[in-house]
């Protein structure tokens, strides 16, 4: 019945429209486009900032940028509201009222910097340990760590310890890199994708772009998460797992593969330590370590000749099973046999784990079958000859097209390191690491453990630290402890509490400094970390510690310096506030020395540059740090005459050289034609700006897969300056450093753990991937529910509720309660409950939800704000009904029978165990406001305006 209009009718109607209504179809848009890098979260997308009349007209994604390919998320588009936020600090602040009151006066930068120097200088001259310098979600750790190293304090780390260090460390130790910045699924070729513990974050746009590709190709996506929102909502299959049991689920998948022989034996022999011989000498020193030859090389058994050979012997045919007697009479067995025996234990069978995981055994068996089918029956081949490090030429790359991605959900548990290990071992069994269709590394990764630093902590007055703070211990010899076995770091990272704390333990700094355990400090210096609110466990306790005074009336933590761009809760607890710029007003570099923006086929780095000049007395924190370095006359920041080496951060980005020819940025070095290595180029930033704010260098075709073992890749990487020589390694199914720590717990070796930690080290430091129950769940009963948080996509890693647009999307956070629990407790939407943990009690509003694990309650994280912060009015819903689960989570576990209290962290890495939380709930009387409530802070900035009508001058 299609009605076909006549051309005459259409022309007449169009003419009528034009006569009646004036419409400018081609209005003026912007004066210029500045291409820089977003900072509304941690993704680092490229953005085109359209500027008009000196203001931001709008921001859109940069189509050429490798991270976001032109798209932009809600936060990125809301950047205007963040940039013009009323919560922006306006000048340096000096505290005038008591700590925590929020009473300040504005002072000049000269005063502020002189004051900071007067606090820091004596510390450096006497005992640099008295400075604790910790940074939050910043992306300049290559500078901040170097500054701390030159200052000489051992007390430095960034926020990884309370974020996802389990994922990062397990990945580095096992594969030489983990997910996100280290590598990503092969979105274009994978045929089966599993997502573990990802809410709507880490990372944001690349995951959405990738999932869209999978949808277009009809690739099955399985989402493993207690909550079915965001990516989990669109996945083909949702596995609503019980929190803290991911490791058990993964081990059951591995059990099934091992049982049925669906294992890539060829891959494991070539690339992993599967054939390496492990000394089996139970109860004796050396048990569990690799059998080695006189050169220290791990040994394998040649199944053709029965001879012991070095693992890299070219002509050997390594055995994967069978005990051998070593020349010294001890017995040794291949890693693979130990692993197989371990995985095949009945406790790892689907039937044994189903109830605990909340996943039917049949589902586990089916997913294992799907993984095996896809990996081995649907292998893909890339016809591209390549040469491995042994000089053997291969005609093609063979791919096992199953891929995985995981992040905080599996890692923020006290069993997180072993869980992440288990997932990487599963990837290895399937042969799907760094191959076509699998998980693929991004340059400069992979980097095996031997290419990484060990942690350094030796200090002396007026001198730099002995080396970089953070690294990867190989054994007890690398612990940061003194002659008495006591921690040398304020956060106790790399101590017996958390031997492999590769990212430090920021969540323990304030608690330990307050307890003066292991010692007191003089200055706490924090950047961009809201430790007085959502970034701390036991938030109320931490606020009290920050404001606590000793018997002489002095603050227990004597001086606090804080830098932030906004009026966050932490500002109120600082003595001196150094106001930072917004992301559109600053220089930054997203560096290959730090956390770059590479893709599997290209190395990439990027900059931010001031596309708008600040209209306040604010300075980019990194420039301030460089200024402080010069004023303190730190090595590297001053020359022989004591003059400042760098004018500001931009100058540092261009001219700093970490090693000769290798600096923060890889592009346009030397005369502008050199990449990776080359002399500093004064025009480098201009070249970046002209190129859209970033640089990419493509990996040669023959170097794109099996990078750790690919001769062309290794040569290319050396040319790029990632390292200076080939460092061969094998994927570590079996982790010898853990065996070394286990031996200490059994009484072997000079360095011995304190007795109260022996059991847990013996149990958790298993060199094979194991699962043990999250610590909190093992305590007395009475807390039947799990409680977790996730960030909404529109606020993941974003800085605050002061964003006038985003707070209309997520201004409240109810506690989502499974339908079954609602029915048990007679709860309806909008009812209030008391939620109680071993640590605390909060009163919160609830909402019913069925798409959630039946034993798990959850809420959006960091929506709740304290009254007086973020330039919000005190009756803002974020401050009245919003709440934090943090109040329920202790930074310490309840007392043990021996009177000791463990940190609420993974015993291996010290990762904050946020998601171990167990709670019970009771219905409460109807309420208007959540509890606990805290006194209103005095705001150093005026409350925001009633009305926003952005863009009025252009409409």
């Amino acid at each position, binding site marked *: 019945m299609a009605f076909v209009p006549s051309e005459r009718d259409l022309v007449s109607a169009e003419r009528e429209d034009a006569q009646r209504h004036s419409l400018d179809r081609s*209005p003026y848009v912007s004066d210029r486009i500045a291409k820089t890098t977003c900072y509304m979260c941690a993704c680092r997308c490229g953005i085109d900032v359209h500027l008009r009349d000196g203001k931001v007209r709008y921001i*859109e994604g940069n189509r050429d940028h490798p991270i976001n390919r032109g798209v932009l998320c809600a936060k990125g588009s809301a950047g205007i509201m963040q940039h013009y936020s009323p919560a922006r600090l306006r000048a340096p602040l000096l505290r005038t009222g008591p700590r925590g009151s929020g009473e300040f006066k504005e002072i000049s930068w000269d005063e502020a910097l002189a004051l900071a120097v007067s606090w820091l200088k004596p510390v450096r001259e006497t005992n640099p340990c008295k400075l604790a310098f910790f940074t939050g979600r910043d992306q300049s750790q290559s500078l901040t760590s170097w500054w701390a190293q030159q200052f000489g304090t051992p007390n430095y780390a960034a926020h990884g310890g309370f974020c996802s260090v389990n994922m990062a460390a397990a990945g580095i130790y096992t594969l030489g890199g983990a997910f996100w910045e280290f590598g990503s699924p092969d979105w274009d070729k994978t045929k089966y994708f599993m997502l573990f513990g990802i809410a709507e974050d880490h990372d944001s746009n690349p995951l959405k772009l990738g999932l869209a590709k999978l949808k277009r190709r009809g690739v*099955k996506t399985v989402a493993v998460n207690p909550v079915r929102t965001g990516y989990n909502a*669109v996945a*083909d299959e949702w596995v609503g797992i019980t929190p803290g049991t991911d490791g058990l689920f993964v081990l059951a998948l591995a059990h099934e593969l091992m049982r*049925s022989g669906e294992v890539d034996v060829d891959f494991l022999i070539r690339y992993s330590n599967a054939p390496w011989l492990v000394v089996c000498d139970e109860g004796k020193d050396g048990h569990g370590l690799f059998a080695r030859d006189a050169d220290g090389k791990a040994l394998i058994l040649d199944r053709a000749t029965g001879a012991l050979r070095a693992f890299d012997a070219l002509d050997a045919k390594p055995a994967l099973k069978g005990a051998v007697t070593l020349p010294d009479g001890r017995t040794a067995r291949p890693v693979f046999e130990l692993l197989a025996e371990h995985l095949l234990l009945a406790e790892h069978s689907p039937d044994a784990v189903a109830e605990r995981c909340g996943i039917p055994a049949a589902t586990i068996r089916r997913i294992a079958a799907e993984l095996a089918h896809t990996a081995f029956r649907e292998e893909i081949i890339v016809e591209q000859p390549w040469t491995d490090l042994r000089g053997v030429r291969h005609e093609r790359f063979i791919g096992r097209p199953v891929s995985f991605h995981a992040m905080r959900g599996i890692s923020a548990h006290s069993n997180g390191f072993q869980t992440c290990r288990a997932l990487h071992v599963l990837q290895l069994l399937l042969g799907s690491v760094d191959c076509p269709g699998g998980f693929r590394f991004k340059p400069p990764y992979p980097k095996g453990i031997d290419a990484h630093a060990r942690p350094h902590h030796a200090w002396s007055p007026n001198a730099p630290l002995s080396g970089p703070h953070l690294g990867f211990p190989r054994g007890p010899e690398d612990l940061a402890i003194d002659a008495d076995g006591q921690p040398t770091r304020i956060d106790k990272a790399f101590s017996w509490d958390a031997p492999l704390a590769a990212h430090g333990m920021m969540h323990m700094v304030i608690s330990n400094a307050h307890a003066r355990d292991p010692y007191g400090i003089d200055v706490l210096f924090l950047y961009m970390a809201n430790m007085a609110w959502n970034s701390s466990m036991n938030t109320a306790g931490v606020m009290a510690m920050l404001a606590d005074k000793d018997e002489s009336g002095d603050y227990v933590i004597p001086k606090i310096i804080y830098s932030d761009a906004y009026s966050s809760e932490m500002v109120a607890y600082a003595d001196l506030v150094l106001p930072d710029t917004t992301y559109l007003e600053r220089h930054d570099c997203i560096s290959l020395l730090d956390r770059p923006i590479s893709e599997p086929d290209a190395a990439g780095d990027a900059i931010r540059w001031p596309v708008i000049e600040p209209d306040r007395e604010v300075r980019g924190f990194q420039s301030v740090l460089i200024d402080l370095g010069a004023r303190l006359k730190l090595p590297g920041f001053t020359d022989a005459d004591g003059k400042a080496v760098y004018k500001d951060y931009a100058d540092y980005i261009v001219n700093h050289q970490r090693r000769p020819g290798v600096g923060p940025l890889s592009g346009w070095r030397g005369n502008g034609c050199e990449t990776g290595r080359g002399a500093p180029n004064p025009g480098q930033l201009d070249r970046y700006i002209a190129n859209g704010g970033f640089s990419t260098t493509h990996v040669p075709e023959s170097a794109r897969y099996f990078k750790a073992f690919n001769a062309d890749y290794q040569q290319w990487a050396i040319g790029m300056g990632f390292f200076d020589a080939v460092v061969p390694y094998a994927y570590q199914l079996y982790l010898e450093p853990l065996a070394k720590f286990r031996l200490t717990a059994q009484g072997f070796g000079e360095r011995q753990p304190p007795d109260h930690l022996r059991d847990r080290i013996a149990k958790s430091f298993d060199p094979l991937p194991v699962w043990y129950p999250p610590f909190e769940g093992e305590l007395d009963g009475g807390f039947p529910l799990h409680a977790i948080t996730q960030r909404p996509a529109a606020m993941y890693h974003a800085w605050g509720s002061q964003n006038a647009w985003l707070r209309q999307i997520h201004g409240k956070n109810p506690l989502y309660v499974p339908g079954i629990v609602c029915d048990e407790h007679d709860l309806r939407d909008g009812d209030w409950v008391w939620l109680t943990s071993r640590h605390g009690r909060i009163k919160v509003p609830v909402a019913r939800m069925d798409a959630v694990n039946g034993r798990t309650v959850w809420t959006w994280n960091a929506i709740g704000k304290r009254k007086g912060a973020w330039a919000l009015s005190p009756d803002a819903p974020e401050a009245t009904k919003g709440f934090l689960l943090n109040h329920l989570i202790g930074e310490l576990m309840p007392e043990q029978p021996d009177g000791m209290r463990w940190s609420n962290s993974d015993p291996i890495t010290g990762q904050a165990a946020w998601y171990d939380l167990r709670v019970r709930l009771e219905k409460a009387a109807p309420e208007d406001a959540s509890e606990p409530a805290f006194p209103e802070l005095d705001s150093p900035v005026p409350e925001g305006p009633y009305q926003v009508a952005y863009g009025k001058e252009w409409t």
Partner: protein
Amino acid sequence: MTTLPSATRKKLGLVIDLDTCVGCHACVVACKEWNTGGYGAPLSDQDAYGASPSGAWLNRVHSFEITPAATRCKGGQGPAQSAQIVHFPKSCLHCDDAPCVTVCPTGASYKRAEDGIVLVDESMCIGCGLCAWACPYGAREMDAAAGVMKKCTLCVDRIYNDNIPEPDQVPACVRACPASARHFGDLGDPGSAVSKLVAERGGVDLMPEQGTRPVNKYLPPRAKADIDIDGNFRLAELAMPEATGFLGWLDRALERLG
């Protein structure tokens, strides 16, 4: 009362893929950002930092939970396997029989003959709000500062704009969407990419019983493969039939490697 054109030359509109939308609100904010400095009055926000913030938005995402009654979760047995979240972006659907246009007393609301876009000519709008009442989708929002009715313009100031590079001449929401869940084109042309997509995926009208004949189409979520499928695919069938005993398969696997 305002009359609708008897037909339009094109039917420009959006195709929104509910199978792919992750509910991230990227389209929502990109829309606000472009349009607050674009066509007509800004999209203002009241009580922007206060107790009840509210503003004018031309596009919103609603999230719904769908829980078939028979499959509610059982205690100790994990989640309700069939409970799903569906994210539902909603903006003006540029209806062929747009009741918001015919109800307009001043002629401010109109449907363009050229491309079918429904617009509000703000110079003629008296802010009476009748159109918002008439729209069954709730797709129009009054701007509290300017007192005029705001609605999706399909970025009419982008899609023909010579100041914008050709690939970017699409609505801001489509340009931003990270999940490729939004598509823009001429739904009056059966050969267009969007029309083909609708045909392939069984695109549907929103609330067809309202008789508004919306131009925008929604692609329904595909059936999720997560119930009653266990048992259809077993590893035992894949395993080498001769595999017996502790790693019985291993020697044969190694033999094959040579």
